[in-house]
């Protein structure tokens, strides 16, 4: 869409190569943005300081000055900045989201990441040169859905929800002209993004509506004779025995009872997605970008994860047949992973 962006994606004249895989890294703050750029991110994605993005946490995200500084920092080094406006505009205030589109377009970002069709319509009507990416919150898991957004809004890239197997990702790629971005690393949503209201059921706030999941203000920790308890708006999410590591009470990652089976992770363990080992397959099937989750994480996390993934992508691109995920990469990533463990998630069929 954006001629500048398009041309920068094209291969050099006379060289018939598929465009290289982009590394898309999170930034919840200016220091995190700089860490991402300094450690090799091709693109950095960020959000404004309000409910227009899906990491709407206190102390996080960008005001006007920070975003301008951030864009300059990235552009000076040949990197891109993407702005996530990926919650759903609420009935009482669609103007807030429209204003956010205005601010993003006028600040010169390289693309906006959207989920809501009404907002996409606004964006293409007012800023026809603004490049649109379909957010994972748009829940587009099949080519018909992705092509829907392409046909109506010229969406250039779609971020796939973390629910498809490798084969299914390939099936999507075969039938859409839209670039595909997949999650490579970070906290794992076990539910289809954009189709989960568990958090609002318990706390009144959720990703679609407020840009949060299991928000900190609903969390209570309590020491009890049975152990340390974590509660979300009063609902017991987990209880830890002495010596057990306590994790953040994301409500789908607690331990519950189902039938005779007591105290198990009925929905999902606290774990991170890590697809380093799948990189050659993802690259071969034409996945255009790898997304790293974690705008709520520290600049140190961003630096560590970006560094490992930069090295892995370069290594895989140069030697796809000899590539394997180095143990040191895996251990470096596990150090910053949720629950200090990782999974291939839905890419690996048995996970389901």
């Amino acid at each position, binding site marked *: 869409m954006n001629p500048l962006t398009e041309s920068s994606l094209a291969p050099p004249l006379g060289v018939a190569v598929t465009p290289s895989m982009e590394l898309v890294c999170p930034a919840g703050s200016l220091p995190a943005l700089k860490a991402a750029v300094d450690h090799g991110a091709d693109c950095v994605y960020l959000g404004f300081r309000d409910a227009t993005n899906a990491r709407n946490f206190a102390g996080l995200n960008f005001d006007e000055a920070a975003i301008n500084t951030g864009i300059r920092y990235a552009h000076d080094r040949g990197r891109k900045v993407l702005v996530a406006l990926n919650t*759903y*505009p*609420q*009935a*009482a205030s*669609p103007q807030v989201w429209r204003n956010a589109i205005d601010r993003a377009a006028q600040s010169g970002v390289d693309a906006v990441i959207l989920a*809501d*069709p*009404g907002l996409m*319509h*606004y964006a293409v009507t007012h800023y026809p040169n603004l490049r649109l990416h379909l957010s994972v919150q748009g*829940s*587009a*898991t*099949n*080519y*018909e*859905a992705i092509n*829907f*957004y392409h*046909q109506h809004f010229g969406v250039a890239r779609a971020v796939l929800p973390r*629910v*498809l197997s490798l084969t*299914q990702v390939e*099936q999507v790629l075969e039938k859409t002209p839209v670039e595909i971005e997949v999650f490579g690393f970070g906290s794992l949503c*076990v*539910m*289809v993004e954009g*189709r*989960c*209201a*568990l958090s*609002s*059921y*318990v*706390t*009144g706030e*959720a990703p*679609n*509506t407020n840009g949060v999941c299991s928000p900190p203000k609903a969390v209570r920790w309590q020491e009890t004779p049975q152990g340390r308890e974590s509660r979300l*708006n009063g*609902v*017991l*999410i*987990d209880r830890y025995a002495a010596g057990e590591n306590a994790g953040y009470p994301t409500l789908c990652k607690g*331990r*519950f*009872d*189902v*039938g005779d*089976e*007591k*105290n198990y992770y*009925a*929905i999902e363990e606290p774990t991170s997605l890590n697809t380093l080992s799948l990189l050659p397959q993802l690259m071969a099937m034409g996945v255009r970008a790898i997304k790293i989750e974690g705008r709520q994480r520290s600049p140190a996390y961003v630096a560590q994860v970006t560094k490992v993934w930069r090295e892995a992508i370069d290594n895989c691109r140069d030697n796809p047949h000899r590539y394997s995920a180095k143990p040191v990469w895996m251990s470096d990533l596990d150090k910053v992973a949720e629950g200090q463990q990782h999974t291939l998630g*839905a890419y690996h*069929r*048995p*996970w*389901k």
Partner: protein
Amino acid sequence: MNETLRDGPQRCCASQLDPQHLKLALGPLLYYWQRDAVFSFYETIAATPVDIVYLGETVCSRRHELRLADWLGIAGRLREAGKEVVLSTQVLIESGADVTVLHKIAANGEFMVEANDMGAAHCLTGKAPFVAGPHLNIYNVPTLEWMAGLGVKRWVMPLEMGRNDLALMQQGRPQGVETEVFAYGRMPLAFSARCFTARHRNLPKDDCQFSCLDHADGLMMRTRESEGFLVLNGTQTQSARVYNLLPELDAMRDMGVDVVRISPQSQHSAEIVNLFHGVLTQKTSVEDTMQAMAGLMPDQACNGYWYGKPGLEQLVTQPEPA
């Protein structure tokens, strides 16, 4: 094209002119039951005063007790009984095979379709009027207006939306688009590629042994304080509590809501339909009906979402289930 589609616009206008006319719909069956149980369930439903019935498998493509042809058979039977029938599409479409089924439903040529995924909306755009299901995330007027241009004839409010936002939507909604509200049942809150029912049995999803058949109303997940929290229904996660907006029917009528949706359960669905109908036709009071309903609900009631609160809360005192 067919009766449903031909009747659409007139019905819509009639309901907007006649504030008393709030239609009753039965949502798609969210659970997996034996084939005979499904047929007999819809036989019972055919005899109730429900106006609209949504049919089809919306949760998991592995559920095959009924194929599309079977659903179409039930659809024909219900239409003979005077019901408007809508075919609902699967919410999470993952595989090529899922897309093929979607294409067949979209091209059925006989019954209106409820799109539960934008892929379905893509297949239906410009071809036939359709229903925008509750999972399409239509949270604001500009999006509803834009979707109406694709052929949306009715939209189902997202579960999370409260009455204040609904009122705004109603003020701005485009001409000729009906509004439907999920008004009774355990709420389908989340969808996953993972099957939690199979996981409970330590089975992989691909070899789930159709475990869902053993749980006609899903599998209760409790907190470690034994409080019913969520219900595992294969790849879908539901609220344990039963959303019940029966006391809000007058408010919905005042706002110009056209349809209220009751979600099927294995027991007492026909009675629930009759109880809603009694209140809608002003034959019975809300108080008496809530009393009668208490023993028919699989769990305690909740209505938090309607008031803009956490969904599991119950803001007006109502009788506890028996």
